[in-house]
């Protein structure tokens, strides 16, 4: 995350190594706890690719297919959600182009939910409920959850501003998630993108997502798990 090039603006991005992700949902639950997300709300989901149900395989008996893909806001360079927002509540932060939501401006029209091709925005239509937990969770600095507004992953903006990683990066037990400045050539994420055949979701939409995926079975073998232990 350290960036020596002060002149260049930061462009935060993630690389998610699907060869390592085991679908344990730790990042999803960690995100939920850290951001004090109400029942039924997930900013970060680990989706099973394969069968119709979570953690089931698809394909054929001889050639089963099953892998997991963590899905959170892709923090696009050209975010459609920002364009369609009639209030300016969805915006890109000037200094690093992070896509954020101003909950005090949002009117809950859900145009951004319908516009996001990744389905990662959530309309908080009901009063937030916490039936399975009787204590207030969430890190200091996390905004309270409101009814009637749209929410999404913020890349843990409060932590980034303190020089920390997003929570999902730190809690991933498989070290499958990497975060850093895509404009810094020496960052982990830039190196991973250079050295691996990374892909983004829905590239045809022209959104230029800042979340890259190393597809299963496409990762170069040079790196080992130990390379990334921090």
């Amino acid at each position, binding site marked *: 995350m350290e960036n020596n090039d002060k002149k260049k603006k930061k462009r935060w991005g993630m690389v998610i190594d699907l060869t390592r992700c085991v679908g344990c949902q730790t990042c999803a639950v960690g995100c939920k706890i850290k951001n004090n997300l109400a029942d039924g709300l997930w900013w970060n989901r680990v*989706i099973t690719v394969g069968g119709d149900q979570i953690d089931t395989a698809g394909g054929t008996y001889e050639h089963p*297919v099953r892998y997991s893909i963590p899905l959170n806001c892709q923090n696009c360079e050209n975010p459609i959600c920002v364009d369609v927002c*009639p209030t300016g509540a969805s915006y890109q932060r000037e200094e690093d182009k992070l896509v954020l939501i101003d909950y005090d401006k949002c009117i*809950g029209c859900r145009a951004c939910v319908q*516009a996001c*091709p990744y389905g990662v925005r959530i309309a908080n239509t009901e009063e937030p409920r916490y039936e399975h937990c009787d204590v207030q969770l969430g890190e200091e600095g996390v905004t309270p959850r409101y009814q009637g*507004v749209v929410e999404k992953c913020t890349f843990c903006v409060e932590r980034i501003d303190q020089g920390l990683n997003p929570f999902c990066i730190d809690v991933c037990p498989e070290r499958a998630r990497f975060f850093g400045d895509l404009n810094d050539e020496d960052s982990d994420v830039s190196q991973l993108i250079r050295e691996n055949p990374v892909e983004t979701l829905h590239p045809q939409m022209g959104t230029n997502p800042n979340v890259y995926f190393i597809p299963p079975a496409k990762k170069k073998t040079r790196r080992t798990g130990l390379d990334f232990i921090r």
Partner: protein
Amino acid sequence: MWTITPSIIENERPVDRFALHYVPQTHWRVWHALWFWAMGIGSGIFCLRQFFGISGSGLFLGMNAIDIVGLVLVAIGGLILILDLGKPFRFLNSLLKPKKAWISRGAISDFAFLGIGVLYVLPGLIPSLPWSDAVFSQADVVSRIFIVLAIFFAFIIMIYPGFVLYYSRNIPFWNSIFTPILFFEYALTSSFGLVGWMVTANGEALPSSFYVVFIATLAITLVSVFVYLFERNSVQNPCIRASINYLLKGKASGWFWFSQIVGSLLPIAMLVVMLTNGIFPASSMMWIGVCTILGSFSFRYSQLLAGLRVSPLV
């Protein structure tokens, strides 16, 4: 890398969000269809009265009934929109970004149309005002300015819901330029139906050009729907194909076929018979009005129902 074919599930459970499916969108349903419908008719009948120079549709408190119904319908549509927001009391925020967001453009047009429309009809209630509420061909300069501005904003009101859907990239079925075109066409057909109903119910006659343009609009709309479906089907996108199946054979099919048969085919047949005989009974015009108005609503609702969300991977 993403070689899967998701299935469609009707009622998504929370756990289903952790697997890949096509799911009908649930954010915009019947209230949005009502909003699109009311605003489309309201702005449409205002325009038609001006284009055909219709003045014999009855008065309400001295003001032209078509204009009043139009303004009331647009106001109702706006109210539905506001009440459907997550934060209704912040609705004025929706006016802030007209450069990029169609909702913003539409909201500004709603308010502008209502403001200008009220000013235009006011001389019927307060005759001492220095302009008239006559139709364009007989109006003074001030009224003509009001009419031109109101028609401009009415046009935006008719097309903007279509553009809101067009830019909903999570629903690829809507991402066609035909979406706003069809919304405009359905606004017109239902407006023709309502104007015809109101004028003939008041014992007045409409110019024959009205009926000819009415039939032409219905026929163009009917053809446009199938061109739209053909165009959507030609895009190699499994989610769009699933949406089309859902529209033609699935849960949305009843609403869709109702809009085509009752909303377009039946009125065309009735109008052709009436034009051939040269008689336009008020009772028939009432039924044509009802059919086109219901058809306009059911088409919009079927479009919303058939909006399947794209999988993040496919």
